[in-house]
């Protein structure tokens, strides 16, 4: 894995998020530097997924802004998007295609000319099923495939929403190993997770502390 630029930080300032008419959280500041891991914890509905989607620019913040390397993300959204990988709840897997094809397509969408498909398949232990149609895969295998694209097309920032869900012990071990080597190479990770993951030196962000007071209803 190529080393990533060292000095660029992902900074979130005073982030607030609105879902429908409800203000989910407000006033969040976060900073993810080289090799850092940010772990999001909180009860259901506290906005862990929303914060990750906000960091991925899939959601627009109701307030605050994102900075990547000192420049606001909204000035160069395409450049920022090229630096992030987002793995959400859903796997994005098409039943009629095989894992190898899916990794190839995902890498092509990111503009990567020589994707590390084999390395990705090996890293998550799915090379035996690499050419079966995805409709034959179990939930855990689909999850591994979704995570494998992190390796197939390298990017400095990983935003992972419940990555360990549906994974068995082996899968979880591979995930932790992948995160560790990513961080060692200078990458950054933000993870929302209910189950404990071995992430040494990680900062924790408890989202329920930032829940909006009940009368902060956004009209």
């Amino acid at each position, binding site marked *: 894995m190529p080393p990533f630029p060292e000095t660029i930080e992902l900074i979130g300032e005073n982030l607030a998020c609105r879902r429908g008419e409800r203000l989910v959280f407000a006033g969040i500041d976060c900073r993810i530097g080289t090799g850092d891991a940010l772990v999001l914890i909180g009860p259901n509905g506290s906005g862990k997924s929303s914060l990750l989607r906000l960091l991925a620019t*899939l959601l627009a913040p109701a307030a605050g802004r994102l900075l990547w390397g000192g420049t606001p993300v909204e000035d160069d959204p395409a450049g920022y*998007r090229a630096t992030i990988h987002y793995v959400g*709840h859903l796997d994005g*897997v098409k039943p009629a295609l095989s894992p190898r094809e899916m990794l190839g397509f995902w890498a*092509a969408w*990111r503009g990567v000319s020589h994707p590390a498909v084999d390395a990705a398949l090996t890293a998550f232990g799915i090379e035996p099923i690499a050419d079966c149609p995805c409709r034959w895969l179990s939930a855990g295998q689909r999850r591994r495939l979704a995570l494998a694209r992190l390796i197939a097309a390298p990017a400095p920032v990983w935003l992972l929403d419940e990555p360990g869900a549906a994974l068995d012990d082996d899968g979880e071990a591979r995930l932790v190993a992948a995160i560790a080597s990513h961080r060692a190479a200078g990458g950054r990770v933000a993870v929302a997770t209910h189950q404990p993951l071995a992430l040494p030196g990680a900062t924790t962000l408890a989202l329920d502390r930032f829940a909006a007071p009940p009368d902060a209803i956004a009209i």
Partner: protein
Amino acid sequence: MRAFLGLIRQDLRLGIRQGGDIGLVLGFFVLAVILFPFGIGPEPELLRRVAAGIVWVAALLAAVLSLDRLFATDYADGGLDLIALSAMPLELAVLAKAAAHWLTTGLPLVIVSPLLAILVDLDPAALPSLVVGLLLGTPAMSLVGAIAAALSLGARRPGVLTTLVVLPLYLPPLIFGTGAVEASLAAEGARAHLLLLAALSVAAVPLAPLAAAAALRQALD
């Protein structure tokens, strides 16, 4: 560019692998056309009079039926997130999706239309203007349909909603397409109508992706 072609290629591969989708669209096209002789009687003179209208209306309905394939599966399985985060702007992604949709819906309709023209006893002299008209008008239908499909993502009854929203927008291609056929039969030349159809498709290429991408961002939000 790689991303753009990659998206088209994926949708094409999916469309061919799940060949049932193309078959469904064509099957509906044929069935819709076949209904009319049963409904209005099989007299050749009557059918010939309304042949262009029958083929175009059936093509339109088949196109509308296929619109939910555009974004709904990606929205449901999380692929839309990945498309939004890809290397190309969302507008280009919409264009890629609409292009793949046209290749798997519009183009098959164009290819099958001569067969259906025989079924409704269309004057053979009008066949070129029918086929060319469909060829020029179906891209506009895919592009404008993409707007409606994107707007309906996450709605309660997306299929019916897309139909209701898109049908008024499909009137211009329908009118110019059938007008082209009738003009060629009246020996006036279908050129004006075909040029209008081409203009619709050409205008839709830059404009429809703008609206559809805005709708997709709303859906992702």
